[in-house]
């Protein structure tokens, strides 16, 4: 390598690693440390609306006072108030059930796509990705028109004689499930399709030759081989669904809140930044294990091809 190439190499390395690194530290790591720290503060009617405020001019004494003023009071509030715990539980349960429904719908769809004639497959993949490009908010809004009391779903069901009176769809859990399944379906189908698509069909033929029935071969051969794709799809749906705000807010009822809604209310309506920060910290702690698993799967998928 010539001297100029070596110099370029060094320069290019610094740029490609250093710039994104600096960005991540500034806009992901530091903000999160601030959330952590405000979660340990108290609400104040001041600007900023929390205390203690760190004053670097006070020196060592200032740091000591600052640290001793931090407390776990917000976390004690979270654990002693059923309102908060129940919204965590609700988000986790709904996200879990929705992920299961997504898997049941996504699995045959992805499998069918992988089985489609070769020339058709790129078109099918585009067709699945395309709705993801149209705004999320719009797609949720579209369901309001369908699910409302004098909406299209009731019109169709009444016309078919399945129901006698307009049923309530909006502001129910059913609406939330429909919303989540609808918006996250591409996230489930695409990793599953990728897993099925690269599978070696001769393995299934071998299983058939050895007398294995088709459903059993699917269970014993196809599913285990597609496992990384299944895991990626499920996590890609489950993790964001737990923190979902828009879907439960627009389609769900007001009786019980998702954790994203509780956090939103604490922040925007109650102006309680410390409690909102503590809620965010706890939510991230709960999601840490699924996020780490997802990252492992993702990194392996992209890097060990």
């Amino acid at each position, binding site marked *: 390598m010539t001297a100029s190439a070596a110099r370029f190499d060094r320069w290019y390395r610094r740029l490609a690693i250093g710039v994104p690194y600096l960005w991540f530290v500034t*806009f992901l790591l530091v*903000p999160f440390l601030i959330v952590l720290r405000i979660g340990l503060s108290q609400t104040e009617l001041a600007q*900023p609306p929390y205390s203690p405020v760190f004053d670097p001019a006070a020196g060592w004494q200032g740091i000591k006072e600052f640290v001793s003023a931090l407390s776990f009071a917000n976390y004690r509030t979270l654990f002693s108030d059923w309102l908060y715990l129940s919204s965590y539980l609700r988000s986790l349960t709904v996200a879990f059930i929705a992920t299961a429904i997504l898997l049941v719908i996504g699995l045959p769809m992805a499998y069918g796509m992988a089985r489609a004639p070769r020339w058709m497959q790129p078109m099918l993949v585009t067709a699945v990705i395309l709705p993801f490009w149209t*705004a999320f908010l*719009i797609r949720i809004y579209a369901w309001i028109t369908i699910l409302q009391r004098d909406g299209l779903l009731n019109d169709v069901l009444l016309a078919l004689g399945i129901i006698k009176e307009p049923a309530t769809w909006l502001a129910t859990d059913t609406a939330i499930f429909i919303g989540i399944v609808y918006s996250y379906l591409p996230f489930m189908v695409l990793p599953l399709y990728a897993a099925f698509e690269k599978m070696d069909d001769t393995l299934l033929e071998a299983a058939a030759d050895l007398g294995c029935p088709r459903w059993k071969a699917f269970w014993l051969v196809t599913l285990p081989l597609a496992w990384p794709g299944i895991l990626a799809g499920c996590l890609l749906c489950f993790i964001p669904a737990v923190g979902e705000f828009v879907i439960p807010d627009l389609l769900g009822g007001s009786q019980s809140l998702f954790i994203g809604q509780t956090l939103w209310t604490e922040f925007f309506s109650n102006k309680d930044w410390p409690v909102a920060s503590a809620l965010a910290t706890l939510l991230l702690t709960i999601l840490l294990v699924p996020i780490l698993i997802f990252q492992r799967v993702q990194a392996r998928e*992209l890097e060990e091809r």
Partner: protein
Amino acid sequence: MRRAFSPFNMVSVALGLAFLYLPIVILVIFSFNDSKLVSVWGGWSLRWYRALLDDSAILQAAWVSLRIAFLSACLATVLGTLAAFALVRMGRFRGRLAFSAMVYAPMVMPEVIIGLSLLLLFVAIDIDRGFWTTMLAHTVLTMCFVTVVVQSRLMWFDWSLEEAAMDLGCRPLRAFFTVTLPLILPAIAAGFMLAFTLSLDDLVIASFTTGPGATTLPIRIYSEVRLGVKPEINAICTLMIAFVAVIVVTGSLLAKRYGAAETEEPRAAPM
């Protein structure tokens, strides 16, 4: 030999696609509805599109959103491409694990957490919230999608092309701009478009990080929708869908023209 595309396979794909498209199609059709009641058909009409032209609040919000989306997509494309090169080309470096963790984290992290943490950062460093803070916040979210798109292209990139150019005496920077960049341009363009539409679409992060005078379109739509369904909203949503569809279709046509020569046979990266 490939196994057959059975009727069961066909039905499951068809039903899945119908489920994905039906609500959007209904929304588009009802945006041309003459009736004031959203769910009663009153004949074809463009009146809600005309009403939209008089709604200066929505038009202004759309303009804000478009500018934010464009600037943040540009920034996200540069940062995301750099990060993709770091992940694919740099081998092992100190903090690589943390680096890749931070690339993938925003993809799954709940938006309320990203929004809240960035807002608290902007408050801590005492920046007025508004247009620029929202632009930066969207870049945090979208750059990781750019990274993933570009990274998966780089995995298949034939690096010997770049090396050949340099062996023939091409300077490294020139080799990058004349050989590597044109070949990966379709992926970079796809990343840009994804970043653009994600930013155009975001409600939660923008709600936290925006300020007076910088109401984005989703924030505007959301506050209208909370008050009830309005036919104008159908019209603006249809326009947004059409806009994004035009971008995506143009993008994929360009990618086809540009990328046809070298995507025919994906090659494993010789690393």
